[in-house]
């Protein structure tokens, strides 16, 4: 059994790192009560709330938070016909928040994620850890058996090539979850009571050439470096699939990061995941994905981007062409998705004109 941290009485962080350079993107359909618990760590930061579902519903944001909120009407107004690439009735809509943000860094968190405790009982400032992960290099070209070599008390082990010890720039920090683990529907059905109580005290770089299942519940990234690739796909209403939004983005960003020489980290920080979604509902959403991923994974494992693709947008457009060419035969959905990927990039570039684009691409 594991409990969330009790943050009542904790002082709001007096020295919030990157306060003016980071936006917190939260998709919601219900309420944002969970932000009460996060106050000490998140209050100093600007929030971008993406309200999914019924736009007439009023979402209450706890006092003291500085935020902008977008509902479906706003998304349609801002993007016009390009709004078709943003999912409806699915938390995938959060990527709209990435697009409208003007900051360098994004932290995204789900509204059922609370503050976790580390083994000593201390409340984990997840955002601070994500920032540390992003500001510090990654090491995708050679695995360090002591994990993050830059961490206090750690280092590169004997045999680690000296020429690789500077590492590369980190683009993504993927955090984990205590309590309700991020299982797929079949696993949830077989193990409804399983809880993740294991606090693995490490951050590590996912090696170049290795794919992973990226969960969007507790994620941070450098928007300048990889933002345009963080499209969460077409999910939810009117789509044949759900709960593969973050997975899709994760496979795309990893291929592109590997190509551009950027790093992806996983491990700390943990958040406390409180709500288990309904496994039967999940099964219906995931069903097609379970079969499709068997084809999708080899597709991404073999995807080779051209050396002319030097910006994230160029990489992403190339990837969309490959999706259309190689995955359309799997299902016409992928044809639509490939088009949506292009629409996304067009919308991204429209909202983030070229002056900012010079900062994109290779670190």
């Amino acid at each position, binding site marked *: 059994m594991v409990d969330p941290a009790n943050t009542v009485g904790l002082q709001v962080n007096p020295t919030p790192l990157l306060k003016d350079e980071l936006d917190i993107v939260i998709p919601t359909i219900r309420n944002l009560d969970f932000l009460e618990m996060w106050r000490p760590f998140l209050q100093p930061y600007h929030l971008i709330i993406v309200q999914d579902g019924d736009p007439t519903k009023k979402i209450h944001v706890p006092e003291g938070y500085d935020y902008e909120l977008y509902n479906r009407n706003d998304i349609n107004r801002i993007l016009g016909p390009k709004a078709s690439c943003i999912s409806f009735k699915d938390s995938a809509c959060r990527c709209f928040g990435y697009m409208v943000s003007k900051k360098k860094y994004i932290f995204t968190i789900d509204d059922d994620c609370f503050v976790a405790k580390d083994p000593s009982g201390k409340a984990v400032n997840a955002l601070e850890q994500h920032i540390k992960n992003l500001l510090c290099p990654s090491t995708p070209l050679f695995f360090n058996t*002591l994990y993050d070599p830059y961490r206090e008390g*750690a280092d590169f082990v004997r*045999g*680690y090539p000296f020429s690789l010890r500077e590492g590369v720039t980190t683009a993504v920090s993927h955090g984990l979850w205590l309590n309700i683990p991020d*299982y*797929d529907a079949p696993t949830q059905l077989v193990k409804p009571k399983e809880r993740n109580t294991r606090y693995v005290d490490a951050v590590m770089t996912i090696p170049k050439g290795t794919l992973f299942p990226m969960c969007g519940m507790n994620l941070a990234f450098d928007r300048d470096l990889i933002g345009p690739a963080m499209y969460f796909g077409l999910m939810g209403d009117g789509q044949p699939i759900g709960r593969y939004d973050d997975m899709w983005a994760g496979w795309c960003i990893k291929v592109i990061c590997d190509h551009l020489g950027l790093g992806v980290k996983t491990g700390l920080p943990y958040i406390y995941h409180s709500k288990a979604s309904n496994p039967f509902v999940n099964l219906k959403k995931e069903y097609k994905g379970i079969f499709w991923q068997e084809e999708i994974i080899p597709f991404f494992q073999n995807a080779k981007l051209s050396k002319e693709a030097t910006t994230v947008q160029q990489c992403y457009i190339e990837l969309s062409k490959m999706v259309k060419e190689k995955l359309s035969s799997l299902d016409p959905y992928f044809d639509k998705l490939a088009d949506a990927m292009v629409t996304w990039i067009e919308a991204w570039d429209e909202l983030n004109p070229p002056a900012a684009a010079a900062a994109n691409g290779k670190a």
Partner: protein
Amino acid sequence: MSSAEINKNEVDIVIGALNADLTQFLNCWRPFFSGFHLIIVKDPELKEELNIPEGFDVDVYSKADMEKIVGASNATMFSGYSCRYFGYLVSKKKYIVSIDDDCVPAKDPKGVLVDAVSQHVTNLENPATPLFFNTLYDPYCEGADFVRGYPFSLRSGVPCAASCGLWLNLADLDAPTQALKTEQRNTSYVDAVMTVPLKAMLPISGINIAFNRELVGPALVPALRIAGEGKVRWETLEDVWCGMCLKHISDHLGYGVKTGLPYVWRNERGDAVESLRKKWEGMKLMEKSVPFFESLKLPETAVTVEDCVVELAKAVKEQLGSDDPAFTQAADAMVKWVQLWNSVNSSG
């Protein structure tokens, strides 16, 4: 898996003795070594008699045994830290667990002594998952599983070839790093076992390692000797080279390599600054090795471990031989090793 569930008859614990007095070492490990067969191999350059406490089921091999079994000229292959490979050669068991003689059991965060032998065997007996990274690490352990998005076709995993453990207190850092941070000790207990992904290279340490001898025995090659190699780990690279070969061959044959638990507690020995005084060849050799292994492709026709070692040796000679005589010697040693392996093990 508790020690009660492990079939002790399938395991040999191989210790390379670089210290003559193994009393403290073996007494500390007694709770976890008892019931197992031990192979202790004495560094042929160690002059003193070994001091081994009572109560262990142990076979000891020394220089004389090496000369008898592999011949005097080949016995030089097993000097220093490489003496343990002789134990791998003569063992008849499925699994080998090998721990340096300056390590004792570590304590986990609850204060309980870690049964490193049990953990290593558990790692070896459970599948590895090199083809896709599981963000919750070992999916087969109690309380964990594969996460959402992990392809179902990859969930049965592949056979585990090796289990690389870690070290608390004195971590396995190189001489320059340890000399710079003389007071640094590893106090971080990371509670995870994970598979090192396909194609990812890593520095495998020989200090705390276990492997499936039946599966990959010949791939653990005592090959790379740096000039001025010494009797402290800071002055060797043999295990790192061995590990690069092992990982590459495992990747080629579809096996997995795990890293993480178990931890051992490693003690002070030698002086990093002193080791620095020797011109440290290891750095140069590693730099050359990395691009070599990165671009290396073993032929499809290499389907046995022995074939892979021989092909690897050929490639080393061709591509690295002119860079440094150490590589040519390593290549020759690898070929010789396979010959010895076959001749020693053909008699059953």
